[in-house]
């Protein structure tokens, strides 16, 4: 814990500025979302959410997350393990590449798939011949989401695993445990909260991702619109209550994520690298 230092006269100004910005930029818009969604009553709020298109968007969002989050979890654990436990050439390059999706516009993450698999893309004709659809289809949405959310789990695990060191795993080996046993009984339990934390952030991003998926989706209503795309489609059609109702689901998801994240940080701060980094 750092000791608190008071700069005379500055504290009230900074505090007021922060609160004002938070109020205008976060609390107010969030309030507007729910206010607009419920503007015409609860029945009017529920009605657009029970439309087939909306239900499909919710299902599709869940499906995309259900595929891309586990993929990222596996990738994240594997990458973090490789980086934290082994010395190899090009390690720092790998770390940089894992971070790339953070620094790159999500639109680019969508465009690369169009470039590869679109009708005019490198593999487009071949895919067409074999009747495989990636762009404007669920698989494209998954690919775009996986790419955008790639760093979340790995970034959370790498500092923690580097910090914990390999001694416990070495101890397990000397005690007669094999590689898998050591992984399941020593490595994984030591990183489980950090993994959950990373998965949580990854999931929030996966469900809320707009830029990358909008490029590959084509926004075909009832077919390739995820929840964020669905909001945009409705909004562009002047269906404000519907748009805000869908948006309120996304907002709630964000709030739930925040609560669980805070709980994790509070209960297991020692086992999360995020709490040490921030």
């Amino acid at each position, binding site marked *: 814990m750092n000791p608190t230092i008071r700069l005379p006269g500055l504290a009230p100004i900074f505090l007021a500025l922060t609160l004002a910005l938070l109020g205008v930029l976060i609390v107010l818009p969030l309030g507007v979302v729910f206010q607009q969604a419920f503007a015409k009553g609860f029945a009017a709020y529920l009605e657009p959410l029970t439309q087939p298109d909306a239900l499909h968007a919710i299902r599709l969002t869940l499906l995309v997350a259900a595929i891309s989050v586990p993929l990222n979890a596996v990738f994240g654990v594997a990458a973090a393990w490789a980086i934290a436990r082994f010395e190899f050439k090009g390690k720092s390059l790998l770390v940089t590449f894992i971070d790339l999706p953070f620094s790159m516009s999500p639109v680019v993450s969508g465009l690369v798939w169009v470039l590869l698999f679109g009708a005019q893309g490198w593999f487009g004709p071949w895919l067409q011949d074999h009747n495989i659809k990636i762009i404007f289809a669920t698989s494209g949405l998954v690919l775009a989401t996986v790419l955008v959310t790639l760093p979340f789990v790995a970034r959370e695990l790498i500092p923690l695993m580097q910090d914990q060191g390999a001694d416990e795993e070495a101890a397990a080996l000397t*005690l007669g445990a094999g590689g898998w046993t050591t992984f399941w009984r020593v490595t994984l339990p030591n990183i489980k909260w950090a993994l959950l934390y990373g998965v949580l952030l990854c999931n929030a991003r996966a469900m809320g991702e707009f830029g990358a998926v909008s490029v590959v989706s084509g926004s075909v209503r009832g077919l390739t619109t995820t929840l964020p795309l669905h909001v945009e489609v409705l909004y562009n059609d002047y269906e404000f209550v519907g748009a805000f109702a869908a948006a309120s689901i996304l907002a709630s998801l964000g709030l739930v994520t925040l609560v669980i994240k805070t709980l994790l940080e509070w209960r297991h701060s020692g086992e999360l690298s995020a709490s040490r980094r921030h």
Partner: protein
Amino acid sequence: MNFRPADDTSASANALEIKGISKAYGRFPALKDVSLQAKDKEFLALLGPSGSGKTTLLRVLAGLEQPDAGEVRFAGEDFLSLPVRRRKVGMVFQHYALFRHMTVAQNIAFGLTVRKRSEKPSKSEIADRVAHLLQLVQLEGLDKRFPSQLSGGQRQRVALARALAIEPKMLLLDEPFGALDAQVRRELRRWLRELHDRAGVTTVFVTHDQEEALDLADRVAILKDGQLIQLGTPNQVYEHPATPFVFDFLGQACRLPGVVSGERLRIADWETAAPEGAPQGAVEVFFRPDEVEFAPADGQGLAAQVLGVAQRGPDVRIDCQVEGAPMELQAHGPSLPPGVSPGQAVRIKPLRPQVYAAG
């Protein structure tokens, strides 16, 4: 440079044989052609400053590092071809490496629970064994604690119990007392030695603390810069350090230049019998600050000027000027040696000087 004592044991009595082990990390050589042996049930210390390669050697024995060259045999078996988990060595890590999410009992039982189904003891057998080990390391009643709820000394004993649970063929300890305070260290040291004698396993332990090594071990291997400098009993290495480094490392040292010709050693204007096997010509003379005899200024010995004296617990520290250089000598108190007081000229006679070829 390498000093190896005459092979006083037949090869069959050596449980552990290390031959020509070399290991480099990139360009940095951590171990250079290290060969040594440990007898069955022997307590062997690997002693050296940090960076001397002692921990690397221990990890080679455990199988956590593969050497670039050399051979390790244990009880006649080629150890290097065995993977870590088949070597059955009990290793205690410097920071214990207890499984932080398991209780003390689960930690100790780990090595038994990961066995193949056919070799795995039953639940009640494991519980019995854990209870027995907890008693052995004097931690009864702490079985449900987590490592974070234990003191350093308790953690160390859990680590030891966990290593002993697999009935290891060899016990490897990496700076076993490194993270403990002086009081606990001394208590645990005696206790560890007793435990070793009762368990009857060959034990290799790494330390940078010469007092610990000399006090605990049957034999001490002194390493420096990845090389074995000397191997011998605590008495042998302390009384006959093979190099100035060993002399310096094992205790406080006073040094003076001298010349050996024939059977005589000459330091400044004083001449005495040269130690056995001393090299001829210019030498460096080493002696311990407390192995010195004081004589009056007109007597025999090296001319010295006493600058000051200070009572240091049971000992007396005597600051002198000898041959133009400051030197700190020691005498056993509480009274000063006769004739020694500040400002006084005296003569000193190193009782057991060791000489090494100069340069």
